[in-house]
């Protein structure tokens, strides 16, 4: 439900990056999402074409890297993949684990088209 507002917040950040590099356009936006971030990748991808309209990222591609959930056990030190609602150690069964991956909500990278060097001549 909140993916549109997440998308709009992301695009404001992207616009800041683009402005900071004097870019004419944004070609690609790369995100990294974990299942425990509270943001649903499919809904975010659906919201993106609506949110990007009229922004510097109008026409940009959204790439979402989905990360697995991994936990490390505080008790026995084992590491394993886990389900969102079962973050237990698969070796000893303890619940005293730490999340080492799976709650990412990261804007990783923005691919820009530059104002000066690119020009319209290079447009594909």
């Amino acid at each position, binding site marked *: *439900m*909140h993916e549109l*507002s997440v998308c709009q917040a992301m695009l404001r950040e992207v616009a800041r*990056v683009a402005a900071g590099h004097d870019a004419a356009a944004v070609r690609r936006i790369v995100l990294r999402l974990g299942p425990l971030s509270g943001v649903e990748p499919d809904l975010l991808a659906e919201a993106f074409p609506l949110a990007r309209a009229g922004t510097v990222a109008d026409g940009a591609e959204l790439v979402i890297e989905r990360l697995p959930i991994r936990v490390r056990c505080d008790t026995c030190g084992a590491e394993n993949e886990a389900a969102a609602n079962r973050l237990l150690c698969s070796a000893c069964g303890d619940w005293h*684990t730490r999340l080492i991956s799976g709650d990412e909500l990261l804007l990783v990278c923005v691919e*820009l088209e530059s104002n000066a060097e690119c020009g319209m001549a*290079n447009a594909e």
Partner: protein
Amino acid sequence: MCDTCGCNVTHGNAHLAHEKDAHGRSAVTVLKDLLSENDRAAAHNRAHFDAHGVLAVNLMSAPGAGKTALLEATIEALEGELRLAVIEGDLETENDANRIRAKGVPAYQITTGTACHLDAHMVHGALHHMALDDADILFVENVGNLVCPAAFDLGQHRNVVLLSVPEGDDKPAKYPVMFRAADLVLLTKADLLPVLDDFDPARAEANLRALASPAPLFQLSAKKRIGLDAWLGWLRGQLQQFKVPGSKFKVGVTAPRFRSVP
């Protein structure tokens, strides 16, 4: 911690940053939280709370779990002992703020229209209407929703999640993002346990522990004024820690959105 933040991958990509290819394209590594704009506002709110010595507690739950009833009972119990203030979040109506004001506590109502959660900017706007110097604890009653509010840091120091008995004991398993964010879980409407006997508090707790959550779980009934002592004791304990001079009161470690992003 490279496997946590993902910087191991981007170190490898770092040489690409700012280098333009033949088409004048360049890749800029950002590595920022998607909600960094909200998080900046949240950090600003938190600094504001710290400066005024106000402990900020975010109450989250499904609609109707008893957040406002809990606040009413808490206000009565702490009258003359602690000064409270409340920010209410709802899609519409001033009803909840009116209930709080009727108990003699200042309340500001945020109506979000259609938004399913509060964000840090909305709370910041509300703070301009509150006299924080006159409060020990500020409660933010979030929009009733077990999904979206978990993703937005408001600047609070603690998250309290209410789970009411009619909702069923499997809610932590169904809404892991929300319950992982809890520093405390309150099992509300516990007076209904004898009637709704398919709700097993032990199962609710097992579902919470399966999220690797160390959050305490207390049973209470705000309406019948049962079991409030553990909750009030927890609040007093948090406030005491918060008020220790010079101590940097840590925000909830279990909340995923509070992890630092390089």
